[in-house]
């Protein structure tokens, strides 16, 4: 409001910084179903991704800096399309976690993932809808097609960011770089559905003690 100086240049600088910061916390999951992404949820080795990305109990994750780590699938929930992975590593660059419940329609959203195998690709859009949504159409999810209306009615974060296979399991973040969702499904070009961060946090809170499992 009232700003008359050039806003596009700082806007471009800030989106670039946002993408760069976010990419540090995004891993590549080689889990059997082609490629997917994951979010470093906790620095002590907890990585969250989609259930449909991991086909077996042991997968490989690749950090942004290039290191490949063996990961164990410690929990999964196909209903919410979530899977928790653990890597025996500490001091990982965990993403700050936001709150999808306070998002408003129209707020800017950035997604980072590896669409079509292109590493750390960022796309920008807005929050299109918050809360529960029933969809009449059918969705595509890692090559599998299913009717979204046939899936249990649940909470989604919907955005108009461009996503493609390879974004699955990757983050959607707000303008402060806080993760507000995990990309799960593309209903059609421009209709992206993500698991809201509070659902992911609830899932994480119910996990068995990670350290013990990993020992």
């Amino acid at each position: 409001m009232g700003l008359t100086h050039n806003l596009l240049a700082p806007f471009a600088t800030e989106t670039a910084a946002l993408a760069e910061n976010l990419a540090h916390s995004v891993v590549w999951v080689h889990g059997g179903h082609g490629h997917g992404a994951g979010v470093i949820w906790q620095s002590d080795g907890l990585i969250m991704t989609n259930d449909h990305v991991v086909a077996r109990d042991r997968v490989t994750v690749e950090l942004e800096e290039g290191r490949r780590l063996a990961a164990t699938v410690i929990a999964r929930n196909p209903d919410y399309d979530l899977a928790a992975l653990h890597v025996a590593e500490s001091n990982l660059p965990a993403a700050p976690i936001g709150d999808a419940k306070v998002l408003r329609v129209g707020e800017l959203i950035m997604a980072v993932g590896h669409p079509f195998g292109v590493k750390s690709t960022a796309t920008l859009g807005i929050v299109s809808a918050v809360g529960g949504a029933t969809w009449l159409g059918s969705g595509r999810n890692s090559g599998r097609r299913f009717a979204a209306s046939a899936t249990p009615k649940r909470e989604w974060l919907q955005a108009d960011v461009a996503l493609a296979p390879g974004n699955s399991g990757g983050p959607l973040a707000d303008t402060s770089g806080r993760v507000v969702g995990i990309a799960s499904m593309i209903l059609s070009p421009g209709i992206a559905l993500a698991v809201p961060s509070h659902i992911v946090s609830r899932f994480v809170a119910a996990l068995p003690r990670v350290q013990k499992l990993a020992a």
Partner: protein
Amino acid sequence: MTNEIPSVLVSLSNELANVVERVAPSVVRVDDGSRLTATGIVWSADGSIITTSHGVERDEDLTIELHDGTRHAAKVVGRDHDTDLALLRVDAQNLTPIEHAPNDAVKTGHLVLALGRPGDAGLQATIGIISARLESQSNGQPEYVLHTDAVFYPGFSGGPLVNTNGQAVGLNNLVYGRGRGVALGLPTVTHVADALLEHGQVQRGYLGIRMQLVALPTHLRQSLNLSQEQGLLIVQVENGSPAEKGGLLLGDTLLSFNGHTIEDVEELRHELRDLAAGQNVTLRILRGGEVRDVNVTLQAATS
């Protein structure tokens, strides 16, 4: 990350959400009982709603859901198939009409938001820019159609495309591939909505002839120095029609309309679409090997 310095990104994000909130009361859900609901725009505080005609399959027993969640009975006041618009009347007062963007402030490259209320999903929005502004004219007034790269979700039909001030620049209509949309420019929406409010229909210029495309004989083209290769042979003149009153006869070949060469029926339709009843037009015709001009006063179409 950027908490120390004022972040343009954060401010912009908040402003976008504010625009959506400001426009939200003017965006309604239109339920015609079919599988897919449409979106409508509050046009007047006393209950006029404008939407797409194709999104409303019946004229009665419609339900409008307002921003506050209340539901109201509505019916169709009038439709205009040329622009695919329908004006509805809902039994509610003190509604929030949409604000209008000034015509000259709608440019290719401007940031826009598409809004809709599809299904039971509440208010939804997508972002994009005006990708193209296609100019047209109606009654001498500039009008336009917009292309945008904002995605139109199913059920967005009839909703507004708004600028960053929350003013409508167009009414979302078609999707032309990969979800990207075409919006009818606000001036067109305004003139059609006004006509539907006043008359229940748009009274377009009507001639009362049936035509057939014919090739003009080469020797006539050469002797009359005509550059066009085709014309419209008049195969029927309706009784009492403006064409009959103006003296058009079966067998005349229409060459031009108000100085614009006519080489197919669509071109003539296009000319007529932009003219109102009561206007005088000049038709150049070929009759008996001679070119002559005929003046006709247009009437309103009855259907």
